[in-house]
């Protein structure tokens, strides 16, 4: 039932009405479609997975199949619909992106033996033929810098956590910590692209866009996919981000992330100009709509109708977005949990709180960017600041979602684009050191819908340099995320230039069962 690949009118929209399924189901689908209209998506875009979950039960009970055999003359492509997907554990996801590459051995990848190896060179056998970045390629020595911080065990799981992360330590029994995430890229631009879009080169849709495309929207008043930037701290080495990271690539741009901003308009151009109040706006829209309806009748261009509905959606957003960002009704317990800085727009804590509020309002995917983790030098000076900025917010978000019963169907992900070297970049002293980019292993975590809580997955060697057990390449990481959201990464595809493109790319990827609840 897939459209002809040469068909370019296409979101691969299967014509549901042609499916060999009962009429009632078609009707249900049609009404679902109406509800799903957002950002220009007037019906043609389906959210395959959503359709599958709609069809799912009946398919299981045999209805769809029965219908299929009844109308044998119909296209035999119903195969595409036979449970390509499964009941999702998570309906939505929040991705806390730690841009720059957090140093795993200072946070969650505890390496007690390193202390004894202070200032010793990392053995060549460990480093192997590793391509180094241009930053340390010229270093004559690669001296080991043990972590400056002590680690303790926490929770029933007895997970080792650095003293830098006292809040994260409290929730280790909820986390799925992955020590063996690894990537192919060694510099920021390609590595961030790979992490966000599954490809080192720009032009591919990001995870959020795939989800928006595949799953569709769950609410009528807010974007499906929202992006939050954390204010930069000048003390940190803030590698840039760009809209490529929340771009929809070759998917329609309606699936791109919409920024919720901490300064100026919450969403670009959201606020009416000075001197225009809600009443004037309504009247203005009434006039525009009245004339547009006339145009539609005269010219018969369906675009005109679409435009009318988009203007109405814009009008609704003008109310729903400020409501989303209005924290005045948050109880004291919120501030006790997130800390006072959550009141200040643009802080990480604020963004975490906003992410929770978006989850409550059924925004499908929220991506929070926190830059500054690129600690080439002054780790002891900068890393405590970074942790202080983020540790409590992460904990508060997870705890808050849990308390509200949202964690069961919300997947929270914490990850950067790569890890950092155990050897020091630049000078090493007992008080300080720097760390270069390291692609071979880095630590990430997830929690919530679909993830197995209280475990640490994978093992790295004693230098946190190579993986000794259970590697999780980025493509597997992404496949697992999709799985938690009920999506088979091999089936959420989009045919472009003849190729079935997917988030996980051309190298075979697999879901990591060990990470799943």
């Amino acid at each position, binding site marked *: 039932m897939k*459209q002809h690949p040469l068909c370019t009118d296409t979101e691969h929209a299967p014509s549901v009405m042609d499916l060999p399924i009962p009429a009632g189901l078609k009707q249900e689908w049609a009404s679902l479609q109406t509800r799903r209209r957002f950002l220009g998506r007037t019906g043609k875009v389906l959210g395959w997975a959503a359709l599958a979950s709609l069809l799912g039960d009946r398919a299981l009970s045999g209805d769809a199949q029965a219908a299929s055999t009844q109308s044998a003359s119909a296209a035999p492509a119903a195969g595409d619909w036979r449970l390509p997907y499964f009941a999702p554990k998570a309906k939505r996801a929040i991705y806390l992106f730690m841009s720059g590459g957090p140093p795993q051995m200072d946070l969650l990848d505890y390496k007690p033996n390193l202390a004894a190896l202070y200032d010793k060179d990392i053995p060549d056998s460990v480093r192997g033929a590793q391509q180094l970045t241009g930053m340390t390629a010229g270093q004559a020595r690669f001296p080991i810098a043990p972590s400056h911080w002590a680690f303790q065990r926490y929770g029933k799981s007895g997970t080792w956590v650095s003293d830098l992360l006292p809040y994260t330590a409290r929730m280790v029994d909820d986390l799925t910590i992955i020590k063996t995430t690894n990537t192919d890229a060694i510099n920021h631009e390609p590595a961030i692209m790979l992490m966000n879009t599954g490809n080192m080169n720009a032009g591919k849709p990001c995870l959020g866009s795939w989800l928006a495309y595949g799953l569709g929207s769950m609410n009528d008043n807010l974007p499906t996919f929202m992006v939050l930037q954390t204010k930069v701290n000048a003390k940190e080495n803030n590698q840039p981000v760009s*809209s490529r990271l929340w771009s929809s690539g070759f998917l329609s741009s309606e699936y791109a992330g919409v920024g919720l*901003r901490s300064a100026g308009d919450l969403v670009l151009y959201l606020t009416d*100009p000075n001197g*225009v109040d809600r009443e004037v706006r309504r*009247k203005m829209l009434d006039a525009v709509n009245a004339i547009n309806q006339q145009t539609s009748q005269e010219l018969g261009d369906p675009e005109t109708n679409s435009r009318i509905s988009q203007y109405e959606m814009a009008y609704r957003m003008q109310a729903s977005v400020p409501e989303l960002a209005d924290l005045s009704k948050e109880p004291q317990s919120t501030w006790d949990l997130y800390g006072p800085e959550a009141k200040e727009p643009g802080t990480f804590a604020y963004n975490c709180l906003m992410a929770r509020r978006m989850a409550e309002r059924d925004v499908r995917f929220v991506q929070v960017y926190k830059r500054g983790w690129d600690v080439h030098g002054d780790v002891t000076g900068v890393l405590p600041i970074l942790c202080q900025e983020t540790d409590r917010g992460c904990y508060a978000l997870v705890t808050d979602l849990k308390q509200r019963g949202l964690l069961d169907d919300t997947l929270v992900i914490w990850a950067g684009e790569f890890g950092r070297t155990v050897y020091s970049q630049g000078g090493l002293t007992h008080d300080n050191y720097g760390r270069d980019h390291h692609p071979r292993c880095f630590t990430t975590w997830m929690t919530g819908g679909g993830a197995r809580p209280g475990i640490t997955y994978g093992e790295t060697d004693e230098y946190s340099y190579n993986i000794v057990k259970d590697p999780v390449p980025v493509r597997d990481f992404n496949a697992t995320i999709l799985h938690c959201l009920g999506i088979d990464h091999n089936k959420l595809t989009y045919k472009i230039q003849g190729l079935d493109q997917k988030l996980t790319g051309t190298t075979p990827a697999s879901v990591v069962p060990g990470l799943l609840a």
Partner: protein
Amino acid sequence: MGTCYPKAATPKSVVLSKLIHLSWATSLCLTGAVLVTAVGCRDRQPPVTTAQGAQQLDFNQDVQPILASNCFSCHGPDPEMRKAGLRLDLKESAFAKRPQHPDAIVPGHPEQSELIKRIESKDPHYLMPQSPQGDAKPMKAADIAILREWIKEGAVYRPHWAFQKPVKPRLPVVQSNDWAKTPIDMLVLARLKKEGLHPSPEADKDTLIRRVTLDLTGLLPTPAEVSAFVNDESPQAYEHVVDRLLASKSYGEARARYWMDYARYADTYGLHYDNSRDIWPYRDYVIRSFNNNKPFDQFAMEQIAGDLLPAKNLDPLIASGYVRLGVSSNEGGTIPEELRVNMARERTKAYGATFMGLTVGCAVCHDHKYDPTTQKDFYSLSAFFNNIDELPFNGDRPVWTPVARVPKPQNTEAYDRVLAKRSELAGQLNAARLQERDLAKRWLASKQNPPEAVSADKLMLRLRLDEGGGEVLKNSAPNAHPASFPIGKSKSQWGETTWLWPDFRIDASTHIMLGQTGDKDWNQPFSLGGWFMLRAAPNYTVESTSGALISKMDTTQHNRGWDLSVEKGILSVDLVNEEPKEKAKPKKATVKNGVLTKEPFDYPTPTDLTAKDLAPNKPPPKKDAHKKEVAGKKNSKKPAAEMAKDRTPVVAIKVSTVDPLPLDGKWRHVSFTYDGSGKASGVKIYVNGAAVATRVVFDALGHSTIRTQAPMQLGWRYPDATPAQDTRYQDIRFYGRALTADEAKRLPYEDYVAEITRKPQAKWNQDQWHVVSEFYLNDVNANYRAIQSQIDQLDAQLDKLSEGGPLTLVAWEKPSIAYADVLTRGVYTARTERVEANTPHFLPPLPAGMPHNRLALAKWTVSAENPLTARVTVNRMWNELFGAGLVETTEDFGIMGQRPSHPELLDWLAVEFRESGWDVKHMYKLMVMSETYRQSAKSTPEQLAKDPKNLLLAHGPRFRMDAEMLRDVALESGGLLENKIGGPSVKPYQPANVWEQVSIGGSDTLAYVQQHGDALYRRSMYTYWKRMAMMPDMEAFDAPMRDEACTRRQRTDTPLQALVTMNDVQWVEAARALAQRVIETGGKQPEQRIKLMSDILLSHDPPPKMDSVLESSLTQMEKHYAADPKAARELIEVGEKKSDASIPAPELAAWTMVASEMLNLDETVTK
């Protein structure tokens, strides 16, 4: 958001009901008893056999698309993915016998064909096609039926349509010929008839003039122009309008605006710091070219290879900036070889999309899965773009050489005169180059000035370093001892570039130990020489270039020994008995005047770029953030303290060059000789064979020994000290004697040429021919040399004449051979085969007798034999005007691309384009003069049902304007538009914190500094284009990021767009200006003013309904603002242009809202 994607831009609002209609409509079509060929996405239907007999299938239109989309990914051109040895894209292989396999296709017998059995099978394991995961993906019944029919008809294969040269079709005989007046219309009508559709009546004159004015100029017609046209009853009225528009200056801007997408124009580099760059003169060149109606072949050639064309003015060179418009990087830590590969790849893809209409980029990692483009084809094509005289990273600078400086207008004439002279001389050089092999042969045959070798007397070491891999380096000196040196496990890089031959580079961990070769004492003469390329990498400043190129020195023994080293570009020869641990460094003073402020340039690059031109955009402290040793402050003091303790006296000779070597990534031959005198005066240093000025730093060796047991090595001092990082080496020699100055001169080239010429010419390879030719032209042919020096003088004049002018990035070809490497899976280090620049094997060959460089590519691109360029270009023109190309996939004319909706029309236009002398205006005129274009846009339910995308053209075009046109129209309607052509990009209003929240500190595009005055009201094509943070109002309306060539934009419809046109300060200000304009000039009565507003925006009077809605809205707004004058004042103060104080605020505010209503109408934003 804002990306360009190669999928058909389709209305985003096709409602579900339309999908239902679609399939229903298809069956309607079938009643016509014709085979339905692919139009849009309608389902294919089995061929219908009529009483009259079987309908022949068209392989290209009907069959190949089905095979391609279902079969080729495993049974297509890519051998890596091929399953069961079956290849279906070629007849020979599809019909071939395969051992142990039944015949896939038995022509005439579908039932015996395995292909049919497989696709019809009910067994999921046997059924084809299957996904890579092995899941069966059954085909549509309709497609199966077509394949069956095709095999039954004999399985006729035909070459892919787009790779065949277009020929003008015979025009159909048209019956109702009052409608079809032009060839375009005849071909469109024939098709409509075939589908049972009818053309629409001509659009109203007001609609028509609005449409054509927007299309040809990107602006609205004035009410006066509209009424003049409406009242002009002459038969030529419309043509006069078209001619006027084609002659207007705005025409070139409108065309250039599209071309900027095709060429990926932007004002920043696009990665990491995303700093600004100077290339806007290219944009102005494009405008100028369209306005002057430069023939398209010339236009294309100038962009691909303007630097290689004879030039009467600077335009061709400015045009060549096209090559360098893509994204580039300077991210610290990135590897130059990877960046170079990325750049060539980027340019190849861009060229492929814009000029070939092919997705050649699909062949980066493997042979194309659908098109015949092999991986080798891709890299051969990329080689054309791999020979630019540039560093592979941009230095975060606004200018990244090569650049040209555009003379100021008052100097242009003088400049062009000199340039013409230069061109003539350069033409002579090129003529010599074209026959360089013949000239060189003649020279060698004449026995005049034969190449003379350097005597191999006492040659103890010769490392050619041409092994290309392996475990050992050969010592090719006569009687060499030892004869080879093990490389060991250390990592070295082979063949990244080609100089005399594919080269050799030591990596960070490479140690090449040469034992006791070079064991000499103070009283023994010796010489050393070789080709070196110093490392140039992002964030490697001149300061970073420091260390030993070659040494035999023991740093544990007070540096006893000798070495050739480089420090901040200064070369030094050291002969040391002992010296303090911290070696003395050449004074900084010398460096200051040199490399830091200048880089060496060939014409056209200005030789006197100021330090400011060359300065990185980011402030210096940030630049080296990555290299900063934060913890090392204390550390860095340590050595100084130690040095103070080290009171070792200096017993050494140190001779240094005065001028530093530029860090330009070029090969240089460096040699030195020492006469065994124990004196500094006994040391001579030569660069490229010429003695260079030196300074004596120490002359205190006396008769002390310099012998050491430390091994001689490349790139380090024993044991592991001060490497000259990542240097490339070729042909390193060590002589146990002092070479004479004449020998030193012959060492770089002549000696090697002598060696080559001892072999028969038939055995010379390409590289050897190149070396011989270069030597002949530069060193033997006096005439060539003389012309070159005249050119140098003219270049100096050109530099002078262009002083103070703006800089722009250009392309500049290196004299070397354009090569690239085929890379396994596209990985930059996985080089498999070096290939010379060439065009894809399935297309016509390059013009004969030319070197394979960009000029050859440019000529090929617009040659009469090229089947693609003309088609691709006219198709884009069509796309601009009609909203969809005749081939919808404007960027893909390959197997997976859409088939043309009107193949004959496309070919007719393509041939007409070429035969007209590539006359661009002629083509636009033909298209807009056609009845097809002039039809009313009104669509009937029947048309919508049968052809929802209007690909058959049963009515006129109607679609939302592009981002730039929308803003321009808004500005124009309020009289705000500052209609001035060209100049640096401007920064109009932008919401706060768009750049800041994503950019890296230190970037020169970190903070958006809005300009004021006229800059706010320029046409949108002049708005500064930052790739990593696009102008949000443009982005909302689907403007692409311009990371890559975009040949058609998406056209979405989103609430974010409504927010822009309702709330963006630019739109509110435009509404107020429009309100003010109609109040001031429209008359007193509301209906008069509304009429004027409508005339301005829609080119017609408001229909009664609109009028009444707006008037009643006006009444409401007046009431509102009369009651709230403060709100009124606030509204009319939006924007920087002051409003007319004589108009009462409530009145102006109310009218502002009415104007905003009008600006937001579907009809207003639609073309």
